[in-house]
């Protein structure tokens, strides 16, 4: 192309508009999984940051590709090298590798720090006694998620170990989800709270989150668990005010009364009957 310098300038301007415009749009756009819990907010922030950093790089490579491939395309004559034969450029290579390394290292450091702060899926229960009532909202309330083929049930050890098929949580109270399974690998996905934890039999997978928005949310199994995996979802999980929560606990305790004497004592995992092959 004759006006190579102009072309490069145009491409850079286009890239700049794309990058800045995209980043601004991202900053104002809704970022998943939203702000319904502290964990979700932090995940949203991470996703936003990655997108903000990644988008300019992404669009720069894209612009360079377009420029070198499309803008610069010509009908070639035969047997004529199309440009000066470059076989490499140590400086460009070093710069590129150093640049990507720096980006990668900073991403890894950021991710590690974020991981250290949030501790999503730390894997270890934080409370010595699950049965103790939390004395403040920053002390976790333990809720056990029991996955089985194909329904999630929930146990509230703090409230006499009642079990329910519906998840109801008090707002602004730190919740510790203890996820376990009775048969195969499931995954407990509370999208709005940013909680996802595999339910593995004889394993206690722990995630903590503080729901901050009252509402009704969707829960879904996120690991292929057999026939009804796609239907192992629940549209009725609720985050409610503490008083509503107390009322709900009262109601569930009454409902559960006939079964309480049969329920196993609360524990972090439940070992299925010793005959693992059905009778």
């Amino acid at each position: 192309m004759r006006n190579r310098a102009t072309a490069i300038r145009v491409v850079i301007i286009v890239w700049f508009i794309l990058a800045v415009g995209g980043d601004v749009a991202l900053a104002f756009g809704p970022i998943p999984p939203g702000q319904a819990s502290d964990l979700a907010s932090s995940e949203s922030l991470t996703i936003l940051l990655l997108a903000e950093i990644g988008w300019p790089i992404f669009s720069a490579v894209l612009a360079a590709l377009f420029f070198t491939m499309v803008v610069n395309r010509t009908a070639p004559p035969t047997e004529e090298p199309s440009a000066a034969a470059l076989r490499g450029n140590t400086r460009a290579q070093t710069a590129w590798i150093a640049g990507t390394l720096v980006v990668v290292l900073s991403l890894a450091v950021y991710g590690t720090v974020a991981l250290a702060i949030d501790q999503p899926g730390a894997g270890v229960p934080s409370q010595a006694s699950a049965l103790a009532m939390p004395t403040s909202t920053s002390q976790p309330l333990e809720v056990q998620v029991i996955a089985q083929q194909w329904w999630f049930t929930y146990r509230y050890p703090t409230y006499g170990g009642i079990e329910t098929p519906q998840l109801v949580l008090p707002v602004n109270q730190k919740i510790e989800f203890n996820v376990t399974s009775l048969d195969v690998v499931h995954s407990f996905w509370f999208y709005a709270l940013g909680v996802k934890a595999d339910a593995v039999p004889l394993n206690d997978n722990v995630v903590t989150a503080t729901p901050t928005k009252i509402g009704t949310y969707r829960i879904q199994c996120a690991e292929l668990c057999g026939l009804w995996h796609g239907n192992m979802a629940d549209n009725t999980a609720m985050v409610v005010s503490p008083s509503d929560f107390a009322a709900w606990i009262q109601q569930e305790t009454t409902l559960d009364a006939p079964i309480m004497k049969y329920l196993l004592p609360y524990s972090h995992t439940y070992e299925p009957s010793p005959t693992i092959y059905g009778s």
Partner: protein
Amino acid sequence: MSDVSPTGLTVVDEVEGGGRTLIFTSRLFMAANTTLQLSLLFAFLYLRANNFGGMWHPSGIGTPPQVLAIISLVFPLITLVALWAVWNAVGRGRESNAVSGLLWLALVAAVLTGAVRILLMYQFNWELDSAGTYAAISTLWYAVLLGEFILVGLWLLSLVMGHVRGTDRLSASHARAILDQWAYITGVSIVVYLLIQYIK
């Protein structure tokens, strides 16, 4: 045959990898085999470390019969020594009857290796569905090693047959390749024996 082209550059007829290819590939198989063995080692240690429900070693589960297990290690060692001697002899260009004899010795010991190991697997006396993970991984590992002994044993048989019938005299690289393989599997078997015997 080589030739000089008008451009002054030489061309050759064919690239013969030959013996080098054989030894190299034999070692490649060892590398691939290492992944398999490390996977089994990982499984062994992982199952032992987890020991859910005390099922690593339920009471009443013993180790494999000691005497047979040791005998099953002696025979491959005999084969190994014989193969080493064969390689040594062939490598120095000694085409004597001793090579044939040594090959036969190696083959007989290899056959006995397979036989003893099959017998050993019958002597475990484990009901796999209830004997826990120690029994399961040990049985699987022994079965994998048995399969490998049989495969290399068949290779050895083909070499012996070709050699004694004179259709395909044993070359030094061939001897070296099979020596490598046999040494590798024997070494792994010894390690596996020690693991299963002492890390219960």
